[in-house]
Structures are given as structure tokens and as C-alpha cells.
């Protein structure tokens, strides 16, 4: 199987996996134990934490290890909104967010919160003028993802940080799950930031929440008080250390990978340009190509490619079992048939030129095969 679904998950670095195994064997201890072995494990945890904060350029922040970006998003939203209720009840969010943001916000509506969506520009970025117009004294929470998982648009996070400086009571959350290694965003000034290791060639089951002011956080799930009493539960030390390694390796080769994938991206786009019933979403982050086979269903295209040994995805894997139209593509004012026929090709560090050539051949074959359906 040639893998083009790196926005869904990635293959771990051998080194990150090696770390996971070594730590599981040598430092299986509980980081909260007070015996010497527990202390060594705790020191290793802190070394991993410090390295991640350093690599992210967030030395003044705290980092809480979680099991996933979904958990990080839930902690940030639920913890803050409980505190913020007395100050206001409006939440602003982009139309492009992942279900682990949107569905939490929608659930918060029954606690009396109002969710307002920020309009999207044609290129898939949030409309800053609209954001500005929505900011009133009732707004307590703004959440915008750093890099969209469907088409790869990179959001103007730094501009939003500057804009929100005038609104001190607003908590600004950024879901940076897709962005690690893909952009050079500076997150300093964001209140909370979510990441997940398996999106940048780390192992699954470990994520993180960067927190600017730890004192403002409350647990949403109670227990033994691990991770600054924000996220109880025995800490996943092998995961945390392995995430630290994956992050170091990812950022170390980020530029080189980005340049390589950008060339591949162009190559794929050029190769299907002459096909009348293929629609390409605008190019954004280099690793994602989102295209629609107009008239066909995305799922059919995915199956046809899968038969040829190529893995791609319809919209996002998390939502692709849902029958509703993708929200990101809707936000971009795409016609229904473009949304229905869309597939996401997402490359990664392992992607080779040979893979890309095979993909192109397969895309053209599938186009021929579907023939009459397309219109």
C-alpha cells in the first residue's frame, strides 16, 4: 500500500518507536512514585517536557501531557468555559475546525453559551475583518486551528494574537494538531495550544496541551492530581519521551521535507490539470492536495484507488464515516457535487517521487474508469 493519508496519521520514526520501547522497559515506573526509580522516571518526564517546550519556542509555557489532541481540546474548552461563564457567554470559532472542537462547542451550547462562526476567505483562511466585527464584550473564548486538515490552509494566528491583545478577557485556543513541522508559526501569546504526536511521525496515544497560565486551568476529569492537577492519570512516560524525540526529528528536517513535498504537490496538480472534471482546491500547506472528481462520490474514488494499492481519504478520516457534507469545503462555498466528489491526498516524510508517479498514473486510470459518471 502506498500511503497518502498522512493528515489522518503517520508512520512513526524508527527512533521514536525505539525510544518508546526503551523507556517502556527501563523506565516503566510511575512518575509519581517517591522511590529512586520513580524519581528517575519523573526526571526523564521533565527532561522531555523541557525539550518540547524549548523546541516549540514556548519556554515560558507549561505543557500538560494528554492522550490525544481531542483530549487537549476538550480540556482547554471545558476547563476555560466553566470559569469564563461569569464574564460572558459568546464563543467565536472558525468554520474550519475539527470535530474535536466543533462538537465540544456545540455541546457547551446547552450550558448557555452562544457559538458564532467566523467567515472564511476564498483561500481557506479566516476572515479577520469578520472576526474583528464579532468581537464584543460578551466574547470570552476564541478558537482557530493553525492548519486546516482538509485543504491545508494556514491560519493567520499571529495576526489574531495581535488583535486579541485588546481583549484581555478572551481566552485564545489554537488546535495546532496538523501544523507541527508544516508551518513556522510563532504561538507565543496564544493561551492554549493542542498537539498530538501521531500527526508528526510519533506514536499514538500521546498528545499535549501548552498552557500560558497554568493557574487558570481546572481539571475536567478528577483523579490523583498528575500533570499539575490538570490531567490526572498515570503519565504515559514512554509516549511523552517518544513525542519529544519525534518533535525534535520533525522540526530538524521540516524545511527539507516541506520543499520536497511542495514539488510533489505541484507535480500532482499539473498532472491532472487537463482533466475536465477534476476540480483542485487552492494550494496551501505543501503536504495536502484536495481534489474533486466532479460527479462521482469521494468514497468511490477512494475505493478505486485503494484497489490499486493507494491509500487516500475522503475529507477527513475522523468524519468520513458521517454522511454529511464536509464543513470546511462548505465554508469555502463549494458546490455540493465538488464536496461530494472530493478526496484528500496527504503526503509525508516517507513519500517518494516514485510514490507520486504511481499516484498520478492511478488517478488518471480511475478518471478513465469512472468515465461516464463524471460531469
Amino acid at each position, binding site marked *: 500500500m502506498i500511503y497518502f493519508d498522512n493528515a489522518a496519521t503517520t508512520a512513526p520514526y524508527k527512533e521514536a518507536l525505539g*525510544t518508546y520501547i*526503551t*523507556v517502556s522497559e527501563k523506565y516503566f515506573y510511575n512518575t509519581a512514585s*517517591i522511590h*529512586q526509580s520513580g*524519581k*528517575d522516571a519523573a*526526571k*526523564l518526564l521533565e*527532561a*522531555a517536557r523541557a*525539550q518540547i517546550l524549548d523546541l516549540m519556542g514556548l519556554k515560558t509555557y507549561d505543557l500538560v501531557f494528554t492522550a490525544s489532541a481531542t483530549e487537549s481540546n476538550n480540556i482547554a474548552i471545558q476547563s476555560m468555559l466553566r470559569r469564563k461563564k461569569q464574564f460572558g457567554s459568546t464563543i467565536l470559532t472558525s468554520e474550519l475546525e475539527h470535530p474535536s472542537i466543533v462538537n465540544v462547542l456545540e455541546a457547551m451550547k446547552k450550558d448557555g453559551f452562544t457559538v458564532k462562526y467566523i467567515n472564511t476567505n476564498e483561500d481557506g483562511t479566516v476572515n479577520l475583518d469578520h472576526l474583528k466585527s464579532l468581537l464584543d464584550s460578551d466574547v470570552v473564548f476564541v478558537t482557530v486551528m493553525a492548519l486546516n486538515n482538509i485543504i491545508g490552509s494556514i491560519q493567520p494566528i499571529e495576526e489574531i494574537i495581535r488583535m486579541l491583545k485588546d481583549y484581555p478577557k478572551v481566552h485564545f485556543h489554537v488546535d495546532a494538531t496538523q501544523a507541527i513541522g508544516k508551518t513556522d508559526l510563532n504561538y507565543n501569546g496564544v493561551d492554549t495550544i493542542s498537539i498530538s504526536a501521531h500527526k508528526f511521525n510519533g506514536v499514538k496515544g500521546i498528545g499535549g496541551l501548552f498552557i500560558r497560565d497554568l493557574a487558570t486551568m481546572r481539571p475536567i476529569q478528577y483523579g490523583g492530581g498528575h500533570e499539575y492537577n490538570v490531567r490526572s492519570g498515570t503519565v504515559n512516560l514512554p509516549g511523552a*519521551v517518544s513525542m*519529544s*524525540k519525534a518533535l*525534535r526529528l520533525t522540526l530538524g528536517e521540516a524545511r527539507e521535507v516541506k520543499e520536497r513535498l511542495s514539488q510533489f504537490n505541484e507535480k500532482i496538480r499539473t498532472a491532472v490539470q487537463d482533466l475536465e472534471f477534476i476540480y483542485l482546491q487552492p494550494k496551501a500547506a505543501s503536504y495536502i492536495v484536495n481534489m474533486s472528481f466532479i460527479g462521482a462520490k469521494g468514497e468511490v474514488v477512494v475505493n478505486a484507488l485503494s484497489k490499486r494499492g493507494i491509500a487516500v481519504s475522503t475529507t477527513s478520516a475522523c468524519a468520513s464515516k458521517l454522511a454529511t457534507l464536509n464543513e470546511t469545503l462548505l465554508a469555502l462555498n463549494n458546490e455540493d457535487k465538488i464536496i461530494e466528489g472530493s478526496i484528500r491526498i496527504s503526503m509525508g516524510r516517507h513519500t517518494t517521487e516514485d510514490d507520486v508517479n504511481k499516484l498520478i498514473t492511478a488517478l488518471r486510470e480511475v478518471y478513465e474508469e469512472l468515465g461516464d459518471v463524471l460531469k
Partner: protein
Amino acid sequence: MKFDHILIRYGELTLKTKNRKMFVNALRDRMMKALKQYDVQIKANRDRAYIVLNEEDPHEIIDKLTNISGILSMSPVVRLAKTDEAMKETALKFANEIEAGHTFKIEVKRADKQYHLDTYGVQQLLGNHVFENTSHLTVNVKNPDYKILAEIRPDAIYMYYETIKGLGGLPLGTGGKALLMLSGGIDSPVAGIDIMRRGVEIEAIHFHSPPYTSPQATDKVKALVDIMSERTGYDIKLHIVPFTELQTTLYDRIPDNLSMTSTRRIMLRIAEKLTKKIGGEAVVNGENLGQVASQTLTSMYAINEVTTLPVLRPLLTLEKNDIVKMAKKMGTYETSILPFEDCCTIFKPKAPKTKPSLESVKKFEDVVDFEPMIEKAMENIEVYMPSKKEKIEDDFSDLL
């Protein structure tokens, strides 16, 4: 703006006439130690010093120097050829970095009296140039938001617009040596750094009572010493005294409400011996008048009686809030508040006397011979040096 140097202005040491060279050399050594991880050079002259940045970040360097005593203030500067054009260009670059709506002023210091324009002439030249080529700033000579400064010196022209306050005081190593009693709390690290600000070198003493106190409590004190050493550019030696035998004896033999006073007396006796051994001339502690039972005037009277050494208490009259602020600024606060029991808290009596009577304390102490136990504790002191710290992170480097 890309700065190529940092200008270091000296504090009180410029007042010293005869020993100035010694003071300047001591300061240079301290700065070199604090900056050893950076690729910079230090040129320390008689009246000021320059740090050649070699592409390093000036604000990171300045941050490392804010707790080095003997520095009055620091400015990131650009060094220019001695031409009007170079000054004009730089003044404009500075101006363009200032946000719109602010006021500015040009200030000129002309140490090189040979320069072809006089002070007023240079001011006019630069002021007009900035004024004519920008529209976002206005001039305010009396109370400007920003001063753009040009110093014309014999070797070059230096320009800057930012001055960051230093710690002041005297360079470390010019004022003798003292022993700091380091408990692990918030106050004692602050007291230590404050004394060092006056040029006094320190070593530290800490008492531990395993297994009643945890290894984490000792690690915490080591971590504090690490931070203090890093911030001051001076390797502080830590003496860890095993106190269990003395602690349990005190607990057995001295009435509960006086045991705290006796404990402090024994600790001070050990501190005195160690001070003399290391060639020190005073003991330093973080006591703050009236903060707790052992720090009332009557307690100090009863405790201090065991030594003739000066006991320096730099925090004596400060407000706790201010001490906390200082600890935060020095970077010791977060470590100080880690919740590990030290030997004072484990054996803490229920109701220690705030006015212990020296006579009764002596009466109870007289029937126990503490001296052999003190000698034994002295012999078993464990020494820790921050620079010799085994780098546990290195063991992890394969994993991370």
C-alpha cells in the same frame, strides 16, 4: 535593528580609585562565566565594558547579566565608523522601529572633542534627518518616550536607544566570603544573592535528616544552588550536613516548646565551625524579623548567643511580598515552593516559644553533650558543586 555590541556601564566600582583594576577584572571574570555558553568576547576597559556579540541575541545575553553584581546598566549598541552618514542612517533605522504616535529626542555624548561637529551640531543633524524622513513620530525634548543616543568616542561612534538596569552593587569576589544557611524556602536564596550583590562570595550549608527528610528535599536545595550559580555566574559550593542524630537527640532531650530554639542554636554552631573552616567571615541567613517564632528578636537573641561571628540578615525588615517578588525575579521562587519537607518542618514543635528564655534553653542543653555529635556531623558533610553536577539529562539524550 541588528546590534553588534552590548555596552556595560559599571556601578559603584567607578568610585574606587586605587583598586579599580581589581574590581574591573573581577567583573570581567564573572561575566565570562555567566556567558560561557555564548560565542561572545568581553572587552573590559577602565570605565566601561563592551561585549562583542558575534551574532548572538543581545537580549538573551542581557538577561544572563541582570543578576551579575557590579553592572549599573546595559544597552544593546551598534558600533559605527565615525561619519555623519553612518549616524544618520542608524538614527533613522532606530526611529523606524519605534511605534507610531510616540515622541523621541536625539541625545549626543561627545567624548571625542576632535569630532568635526559639536554636540549641538550632531543633534541638529540627526534630529532633522529623522524628522524629515519619518512621519510617524514627533519630537519632545523635555519628556520623550524614546531617546536615540549617539556616543562619539575616540575609537568609534556607538548608538542605541534602550538602557536596561543592572543589579548594581560590587563585583563578586571583592568583598570576602560568607556562609549562607540555605533551608530550601523562599527567603534564603534571596538573602544569598543579595549578599553576593555586595561583592561577597558565598558557600551554602544545608541540614538534612534522612530518612525523616526526603532525598527530594536535598535535590531541591541543590537545584536552588544551581539556579543561584547560573544567575550569578559563580559556582556556589553546597555543604550538606547530616543532622539526623542531632535532630532525634534534640527531640528526645529538649522540651517541645524549646526544641526549635535549641535546633537553631546547634545549626548555628555547626555553621560557625564551617565558616571558619572555609575561610569565611560571616554567616548569612534569610531571617525576617517577626516572620516566624524563630525570627522574633528574643529568639534571635537566644540563638545568636552561640557565635561571635557576624550573622548577616539582608532580608531582616523587608515585606514578605517583596521577598517573593525578588525570588520570582531571580528565578528561585518556583523551586522554593516545591512541597518537600525539610528538617525544620518535620520536627516542628506544636507551639514553639516566640520568646524563648536563653537561661532555660542553656539549662536543658547543658545536660547533653552535643559536641561529639557535632564533630561527627562535620566529618560527614557531603559537598555538592553545581559545575560538577552529573548531567542526568545526558543519560537521557539518546532517548530524547
